[in-house]
């Protein structure tokens, strides 16, 4: 009791008016006015106990503190003579956690509430439901794809061209990266990033990554497709090469339209590293496909995104128009040349040499390109007209353009037919001979509108018109040449009508007389 002091709050400092503070010296006591704690005892109900009494003797000069240890007696007949129950009079000091009792303490006190009684009411420990094992998680665009331990990683160059393995793959973000990794042939079986296991080891939550196909690339660059595609091939040192090293990984993730991942497959390109090579270039790609759809690249979801190619397609042969519109599906091809493309200008600006390279029409980007044509007298007109048409429109000009960025091939009504117009510049000449016409310009006008809600409008193509302007080719005297400019252009026009405001309906007054209002008379 002599050591207990309730008012001693400051450590190693004297508290004011605290007579029991051991940090106070005699000079401090002389400055006190009263004792804030005059008596320190145990439980007052005890029959007899020791008590410490502190008081200030103000008569003396300087005032000094008096400390007395007395026996305090409780005269009541119901005073506690003895007790065999430790916690009755003293606070139980808490158990210090040790490695042995930590789990038990955590179980007892780890929750939001705990009872002071010993646990006697954990009668039914089996009542807890086991947590859902297949909790499918839904992803949003751009959210990193989670695996068991971390995220699905797509190695990519970060600051320099060296591969960094910490780049997580975002959901629905199709990425293709190339980076350089430093290797050494001696340690090639210990470098993790060169083995197939590193890329298929972590399973995407409930879905395992399967090996879709393996392509083996030889030292001189020739690639062969392996027929036994799901055998795991680990890198090993053979002769002076390190074979089965991963040179490229292509992930294909299939998801539902709810955003849950249901399938994951990886296609590998394995190659051999020669002894002199200090670094290799690895390429990685990830693509997301919605289940039950063709893996056609979409240009928006659902409205077109500026900068993505305008999707186009053909009606398959043999379907009678228009009855087949309801049943037919459009033949789409991922071949770049049968998409909506325009002529791409080259440095030579020669139309006949420019065949082959075409630029895809990107939504929202007005483009103009052209070339020059040297006409000599010896050229045949019809042949020239056909060649120029090919140059302007490409090998196969599509017939339909997708109205939305993600229009499926089987929704034929979602596709807009391309209207083709032919304008001929009839040069007024006195010779009204039916001279041949050669197309000199192609203008594609795409009319689009904003569709949907005002806060998130989606771009939708409404109308596509391809206008081919032809002009008459005048017969040249032999030996002379002419240079004709050929142009092609794409224009996107926004024809969205302005948003119409709508007003809330005015409140109507609803008055009805009671049924028996005119009682005595009706």
């Amino acid at each position, binding site marked *: 009791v002599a050591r207990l002091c309730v008012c001693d709050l400051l450590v190693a400092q004297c508290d004011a008016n605290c007579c029991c503070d051991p940090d106070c010296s005699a000079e401090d006591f002389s400055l006190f006015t009263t004792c804030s704690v005059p008596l320190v005892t145990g439980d007052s109900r005890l029959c007899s106990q020791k008590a410490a009494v502190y008081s200030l003797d103000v008569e003396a000069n300087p005032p000094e503190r008096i400390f007395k240890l007395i026996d305090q007696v409780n005269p009541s*007949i*119901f*005073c*506690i*003579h003895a*007790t*065999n*129950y430790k916690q*009755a009079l003293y606070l139980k000091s808490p158990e210090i956690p040790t490695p042995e009792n930590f789990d038990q303490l955590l179980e007892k006190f780890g929750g939001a509430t705990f009872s002071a009684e010993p646990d006697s009411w954990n009668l039914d420990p089996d009542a807890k439901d086991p947590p859902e094992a297949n909790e499918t998680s839904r992803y949003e665009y751009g959210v990193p794809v989670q695996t068991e331990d971390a995220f699905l990683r797509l190695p990519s160059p970060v600051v320099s061209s060296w591969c960094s393995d910490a780049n997580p793959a975002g959901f629905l973000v199709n990425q293709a990266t190339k980076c350089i990794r430093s290797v050494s042939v001696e340690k090639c079986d210990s470098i993790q990033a060169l083995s197939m296991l590193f890329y298929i080891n972590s399973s995407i939550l409930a879905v395992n990554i399967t090996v879709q196909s393996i392509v083996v690339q030889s030292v001189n660059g020739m690639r062969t497709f392996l027929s036994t595609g799901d055998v795991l091939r680990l890198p090993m040192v053979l002769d002076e090469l390190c074979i089965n090293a991963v040179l490229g990984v292509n992930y294909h993730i299939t998801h539902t339209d709810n955003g849950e991942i249901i399938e994951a497959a990886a296609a590998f390109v394995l190659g051999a590293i020669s002894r002199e090579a200090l670094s290799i270039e690895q390429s990685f790609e990830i693509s997301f496909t919605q289940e039950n759809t063709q893996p056609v690249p979409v240009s928006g979801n659902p409205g077109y995104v500026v900068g993505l190619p305008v999707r186009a397609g053909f009606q398959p042969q043999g379907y009678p128009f228009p009855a087949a519109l309801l049943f037919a599906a459009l033949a789409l091809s991922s071949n770049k040349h049968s998409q909506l493309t325009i002529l791409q200008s080259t440095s030579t600006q020669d139309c006949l040499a420019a065949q082959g390279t075409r630029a895809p029409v990107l939504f929202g980007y007005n483009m103009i390109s052209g070339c020059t044509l040297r006409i000599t007298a010896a050229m045949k007109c019809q042949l020239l007209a056909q060649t120029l048409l090919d140059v302007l429109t490409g090998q196969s000009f599509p017939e339909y353009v997708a109205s939305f960025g993600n229009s499926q091939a089987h929704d034929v009504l979602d596709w807009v037919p391309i209207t083709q117009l032919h304008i001929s510049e009839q040069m007024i000449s006195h010779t009204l001979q039916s001279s041949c016409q050669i197309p000199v310009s192609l203008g594609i006008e795409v009319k689009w509108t904003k569709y949907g809600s005002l806060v998130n409008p989606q771009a939708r193509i409404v109308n596509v018109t391809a206008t081919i302007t032809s002009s008459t080719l005048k017969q040249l005297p032999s030996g002379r040449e002419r240079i004709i400019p050929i142009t092609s252009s794409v224009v996107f026009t926004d024809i969205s009508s302005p948003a119409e405001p709508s007003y809330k309906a005015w409140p109507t007054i609803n008055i009805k007389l009671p049924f028996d209002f005119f009682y005595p008379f009706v």
Partner: protein
Amino acid sequence: NNSSQLSSLPLHILLYVNGIYYIFYFLVTLAMIIYKSQVFSYPDDFLAPDLAVLFLMAILEVPRLYLGFKGNLTEAEAPLGLSLGLTVGSVVLCVYLLLWQTYVLWADVLLNAVLLSAYGLESGFKVTAIAAFIS
């Protein structure tokens, strides 16, 4: 007539007083246990043994007193001996209530001390009576 009477009068008086005192003791101790359980922190694991001991003592007391009366009046040593044995048990329980109860109040000490001294005196008289009956 005194010479042929072996029954001990002091034992009879003591047993009679013991019976009355025991009723008082039982009621007061029970009341105090109820009071202690309200005023102090008295968890169930500690309350149960105390109450059990008290009731056990009450159950023992009835045959003990009856056998004591009967043995003394019929001057038979067997009931008196049995009563003596039961007294030993009662003494143990009384000592428990005096020393090893959860809360021993000053009143508990007084009551149990008086009861113990009564038991002691009784035992002394019973032994004397048995000795007188045997011989």
